[in-house]
């Protein structure tokens, strides 16, 4: 069985360019084109956030698809479920906009679509092999890999750094 993939965030690489935000909004627009997305009313919403921590750190935030997902268990209308791929999804038709999920998400990554009175969140781009935010990231701050594969990359990078340091 292949390992499920996760979106990993390398905050040391994020430059705060917001490419991920634009790509996410475009992917979740009707036309899936930048021009169409900008013209759409209400504007399509991004489900990835880039926050800033003083003095100069940028932190991309995206739904972690928590194993014991607080939003899913707190939902009072049964709108949130985990699909066969392990992705936690909000069913807009069932969402009643009570914002209980917003109240319990410890990452703050559930958005509120005020015009439609619905909560929205990362759905890992079901129509794509690689989520749009990851594809759009120009610096490799967002990485879509399985846990073992990512761990291996981190280990390799660390050993390269060590070897470089030893060589001076």
């Amino acid at each position, binding site marked *: 069985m292949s390992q499920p993939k996760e979106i990993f965030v390398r905050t040391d690489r994020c430059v705060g360019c917001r490419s991920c935000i634009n790509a996410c909004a475009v992917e979740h627009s009707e036309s899936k084109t930048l021009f169409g997305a900008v013209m759409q009313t209400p504007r399509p919403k991004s489900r990835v956030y880039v926050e800033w921590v003083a003095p100069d750190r940028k932190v991309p935030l995206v739904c972690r698809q928590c194993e014991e997902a607080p939003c899913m268990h707190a939902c009072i209308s049964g709108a949130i479920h985990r699909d066969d791929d392990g992705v936690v999804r909000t069913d807009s038709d069932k969402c009643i906009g009570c914002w209980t999920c917003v*109240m319990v998400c410890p990452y703050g990554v559930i958005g509120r679509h005020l015009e439609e009175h619905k909560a929205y969140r990362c759905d890992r781009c079901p129509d794509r092999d690689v989520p749009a935010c990851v594809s759009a990231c120009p610096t490799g701050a967002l990485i879509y890999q399985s846990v073992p594969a990512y761990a291996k990359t981190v280990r390799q990078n660390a050993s390269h750094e060590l070897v470089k340091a030893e060589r001076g």
Partner: protein
Amino acid sequence: MGREQSQYVIVGGSAAGMAAAQAIREKDPTGTITVISEEPDAPYFRPLIPFLVSGKKQAHEMVLEGCGPYQAAGITVNTGSRAAALDANNHCIVLEDGTRLGYKKILLATGSRPYVPPDIEGADATGVFALRTLDDARRMAARIDQTEHAVMLGGGLLNLKAAFALLERGVKVTLVVYSPEVLSQLMDPEDATLIRKALDDAGLAIMTGVAAVGIQSDATGVTGVVLNNGRELASQMVCIGKGVRPNVEFLAGSGIRVTEGIEADRYTATNLTGVYTAGDVAVTHDPVAGTPIMTALWTNAVEMGRCAGQNMAGLKTAYCGTFGILNATQVANEPFVAMGIVHTKDGDYEIHRKAATGSYRKLVFDKNGDHLIGAVFVGDITNAGLYRYVIREKMATAAIKRQIIEHTLHYGHFSF
């Protein structure tokens, strides 16, 4: 009647009971699970019942099975079945029809029922409701055609939701509130200003500081409500939202320790072996105030029910307790969140308030200003979950206090 046997018996088929059943099934794929529910309907999402009144949803759209995390695999639900007594010595629950159902582990998740103040005369008339069950909602919806004016007694969230459901059906609605302001359980009167304005703008008539003393009726049912200020309101429907009381009567003589509700230890267990409790009926503890507490909230009930289910299935799991106040919703297009300690009149707290057009927030720190212990957000509820986390985990707030007060806290502040 004969004796039946089930490894796990769950008394109560709502939030806590069904969450427990699901949690047990996740840990124990084979143990038999039997849920006893006194309601005629299969388990459903109780918070959705106002939508049956408004007509926005049908009953079949509220069923639990197959929705959210509820798979219901191998869980037997006996509806219309009511527990009469617990025979803990013989590991049996006795049902009203005389059946004895044996168990190895049992969960008491019998929930609560509406409290109807005994000093309101005539509250048994046709057309008087306490919106609690799907059946209540059906009966309420059926009376809308003959209702021009409905009077809601109590200014809590449930009554507000019922009021808006009726408004959407074109019924004139008056909310009669004994407290100085609506939502008095969830916030201080001055914190409710924005919400009150939104309710007024939405066309809800609100009378505060008054109570009903009697309900008048004739052969057609309710005809009016008499208030303690001498006024009478002509009305064809009354909805009582005066809080709830735990369903514990069947436990008399069982040996279960009941104070107001059933006392739960840190692992959701009662004082008797193999007997657990969760949800509205359980007395747990408030991690912020450190006091015993009962809540009547779906979200809390699910969290505690899951914890109980895990303990019953053999995975010892501590319950982290719940805030007395924990609620999020939107009424009259005004979203709000209230959590932790929000009533600050009688106590020594450090309070930060900020009001702006369309938004209001209040942050309550302990008297030393070291820990966030409560928050009310109206209008803008962004990142409320982070504040809940800070409160519940009793985080030292020195490094993030400015962000908390300015409402700029985000997860980036927690990492590294």
